[in-house]
């Protein structure tokens, strides 16, 4: 056991990979939860007066949920490669930690943006329906921040 662990394959190598997978889903879920909760309060306040707009106003919640799916995809990818230290080099662990952190923190940032924009946008859409297109555009630009993190994470994962 101890003979097969070397300086390239130390016993703590998989620790970094595990932390990468965990941080990918933890921070993405944190951002998605904030986005859902913040835009959910806006939807609840707006739906009292305009219940027919529910279908339109659910969109920020759906977009916040997508952030968590980004984190889930990267976490599953990393978890699929985790192995015993003999087959899992320290370099792989570092790469996986970086991939997880990149998608996790990007997802958190995107979730915060979606929450704040969704709250204000949904409240505004109730009073001026033409704001809807602008809200969708801003939400897409917020969502894309999480997608950038996913792209970088997948690119790192291929190394």
């Amino acid at each position: 056991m101890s003979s097969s662990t070397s300086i390239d394959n130390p016993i703590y190598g998989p620790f970094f990979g595990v932390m990468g997978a965990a941080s990918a889903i933890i921070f993405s879920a944190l951002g998605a939860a904030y986005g859902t909760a913040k835009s959910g309060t806006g939807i609840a306040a707006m739906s009292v007066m305009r219940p027919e707009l529910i279908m339109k106003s659910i969109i920020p919640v759906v977009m916040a949920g997508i952030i968590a799916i980004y984190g889930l995809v990267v976490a599953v990818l990393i978890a699929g490669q985790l192995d015993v230290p003999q087959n899992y080099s320290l370099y792989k662990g570092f790469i996986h930690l970086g991939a997880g952190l990149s998608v996790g923190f990007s997802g958190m940032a995107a979730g915060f943006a979606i929450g704040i924009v969704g709250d204000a946008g949904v409240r505004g859409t109730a009073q001026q329906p033409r704001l809807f297109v602008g809200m969708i555009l801003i939400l897409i630009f917020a969502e894309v921040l999480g997608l950038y993190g996913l792209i970088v994470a997948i690119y790192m994962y291929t190394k």
Partner: protein
Amino acid sequence: MSNKSKKATGGASDANQQKLAKQRSHDSQDYSAFKVVLFYCSLIVFLPVVTFFVLKGFVLERFFTMSDVKVNIAAAVGAVAALHVSLGVYIYRAYFGGSKASKED
């Protein structure tokens, strides 16, 4: 209330029925909106997960000779693409279908 009942002594049942019909139409509208939203939300949540594992487990490993990492990447990209397609369909439906419903109200 008393004013209303005096006016509608003749057509009390009529007014009641109208109210009921209105309530029913509201309920059916709510129900249909709920069905649409539930369908799209479950589509957006489950489609990428299903796509990921179907692509990884069945399609790519059987029909293509790729390395493990490439299969994973292709499955992840496919899942994210499926996710965005379903999100786009939902936004399209909310934008064009939802405006019709709001005009009716």
